[in-house]
């Protein structure tokens, strides 16, 4: 390097590109030492938890979907599971399988969107995927075709890919026949092959050195690679049921963000999402995904966030195999939903959104009116962890030029696939640490 960067400098990115929602980054270096790092979220507040009060218990599946256009199914599934919990109903068997199938569609769509359109350009040195397509048209086309299969699953089962209309408490409005699912089989088989090739492709990228020692947190279940439920476990020994979530995870409100920051009580930052799921649940992956992960050289203890793109690709493989498995074993249930009658009480539920654990809590009265709602999305859980990771990354790379450091830092933020639209809605504060 010909010039030493100045000892005092401020790096700013006013509007982060290739993330979902509106965010900015702010890094301050004073006298050669890193002074402050902020991931600023300025997505306007939308007050979901406030206006859900007074709505019917049947409405959150449609209303909370609108928190996020990228992962609406995650909101629908967590909302339904929380409300069904409040009403004492368990949805299982083929209805649960169909929900899982719908969720597979969302994982494929969301992960491939991030891998190909938002994240891969960072590794290959392009401004965006459209520019990347100039040199890598086949990769981009294969990615778009794979993403489309995810959307096809969502459209067939849910009616449309964004804000599906066929989801309700208790199950669905209409369930498909076996024959109606059949046209998904061949595209999903091809998608599985494409996904396996994608794991190989992204595993060959160059990954900067990075790492952290944060606690990794994910839903976990001995019987499968948990998505629809389970207990919340961590690399630090956390092991809780959904009703205990707010006893262990607290949120605070900081000035530079319209999203609240989550912390593990008395332990600090933690990370949800692909790296956490892989660390805790790799043994539950299906054969194809497990072999792909091994061939890609993924270690269960992987903590380099730049490699999260490989885990996402492995999870696309997992979603394709899981979708095929569900369709193969599908028998149409007698009714499209189970009755969910309201009763006064509190219910909690969680599922694994593509970006990590999404927790909902509802209090309803005996007529089914919502009295209180709390939603903790993955990105507000990850925001302190992202800042923490960013701080250490910037600290270790202060000798880079401003442009290079800014570029690498943006890339590091994108490693977490932050969904800022999601992060921006909030819950009652239990702790004030500003």
């Amino acid at each position: 390097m010909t010039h030493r960067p100045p000892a005092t400098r401020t790096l700013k990115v006013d509007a982060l590109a290739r993330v979902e929602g509106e965010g900015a980054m702010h890094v301050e270096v004073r006298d050669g030492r890193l002074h402050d790092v902020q991931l600023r979220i300025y997505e306007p507040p939308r007050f979901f938890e406030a206006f859900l009060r007074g709505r019917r218990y049947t409405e959150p599946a449609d209303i909370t979907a609108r928190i996020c256009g990228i992962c609406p199914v995650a909101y629908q599934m967590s909302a339904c599971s929380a409300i069904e919990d409040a009403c004492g109903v368990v949805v299982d068997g083929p209805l649960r399988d169909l929900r899982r199938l719908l969720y597979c569609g969302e994982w494929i769509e969301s992960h491939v969107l991030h891998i190909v359109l938002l994240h891969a350009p960072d590794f290959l040195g392009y401004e965006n995927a459209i520019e990347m397509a100039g040199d890598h048209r086949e990769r981009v086309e294969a990615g778009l075709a794979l993403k489309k299969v995810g959307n096809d699953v969502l459209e067939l089962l849910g009616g449309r890919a964004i804000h599906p209309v066929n989801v309700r408490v208790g199950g669905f409005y209409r369930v498909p026949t076996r024959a109606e699912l059949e046209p998904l089989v061949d595209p999903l088989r091809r998608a599985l092959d494409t996904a396996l090739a994608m794991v190989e492709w992204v595993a060959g990228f160059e990954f900067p050195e990075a790492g952290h020692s944060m606690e990794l947190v994910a839903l976990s279940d001995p019987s499968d690679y948990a998505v629809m439920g389970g207990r919340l476990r961590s690399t630090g020994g956390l092991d809780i049921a959904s009703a205990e979530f707010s006893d262990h995870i607290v949120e605070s409100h900081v000035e530079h963000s319209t999203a609240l920051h989550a912390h593990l009580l008395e332990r600090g930052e933690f990370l949800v999402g692909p790296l956490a799921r892989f660390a805790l649940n790799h043994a539950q992956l299906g054969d194809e995904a497990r072999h792909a992960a091994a061939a890609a050289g993924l270690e269960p203890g992987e903590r380099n966030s730049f490699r999260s793109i490989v885990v996402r690709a492995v999870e696309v493989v997992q979603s394709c195999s899981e979708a095929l498995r569900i369709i193969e074993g599908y028998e149409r249930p007698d009714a499209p939903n189970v009755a969910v009658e309201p009763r006064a009480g509190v219910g909690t539920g969680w599922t694994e959104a593509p970006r990590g654990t999404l927790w909902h809590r509802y209090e309803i009265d005996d007529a089914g009116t919502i009295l209180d709602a709390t939603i903790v999305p993955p990105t507000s859980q990850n925001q302190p962890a992202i800042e923490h990771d960013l701080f250490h990354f910037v600290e270790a790379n202060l000798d880079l030029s401003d442009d290079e450091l800014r570029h690498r830092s943006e890339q590091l933020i994108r490693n977490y696939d932050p969904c800022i639209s999601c992060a921006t809605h909030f819950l009652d504060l239990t702790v004030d640490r500003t």
Partner: protein
Amino acid sequence: MAVWKFSSCDGCQLTLLDCEDALLAVADRVELAYFLEAGADGGDDGGERGSSLFDLSLVEGSVSTPNDVERIRMVRRRSRRLVTIGACASSGGIQALRNFADVEEFLGIVYAQPQFISTLATSTGISDHVPVDFELRGCPVDKRQLLAVIAAFANGDPPPVRGHSVCIECKHAGTVCVAVAGDIACLGPMTHAGCGALCPTYHRGCYGCFGPAEDANVAAMGVELRRRGVEDGDVALALHTFNAWAPELRDPEGER
């Protein structure tokens, strides 16, 4: 072309990325000059603080902060044509439910430090603030309609979108009426077409996410909903969702 985001879920701009079969073909014909989510940051003069002009701006989201009010004027100044996409940009979106409540109370419910938050008391559509060349409806917009509208503006044609109700789409599709045959409450008679009558295809009544049709009779809709057994309070809720601040629904006679 530019894509701008205001207060929203990102779903309508994502609809453009969901046009997998057409995306690269569109990009071959139309320069996506500013589309932050897709990584096109507009360069030195094409971004938020630039001054370059765009032939077509797609605007997603509602105006809900003091900064948005200034920002939408900037977008209008720099756009030859401005098309809004989705319910938020047309009528304020689901977040316009605050318009019927006390935003100070909402702030208190959600935030420990309300003084950190900059928000307006209302969430409103783009046309409340600047002239709009066309509003594409939907929560989210339909991708076939989105592509058709982009193509129409690129070719200087009128957008091929009709303002009739969802009922017409059911008739076109040959879908049996869920209200008449299934006794299911359905907002189809007053709701703007465009989705292809999705909900009735899934044995569900339309829930109005495209907002009022051009000839919506909201009072008659209320009567029809009651006839299907929807109670008074629930009629008001059914009409107050993703397009609650649309003029026809803002204060439907007898529904509030």
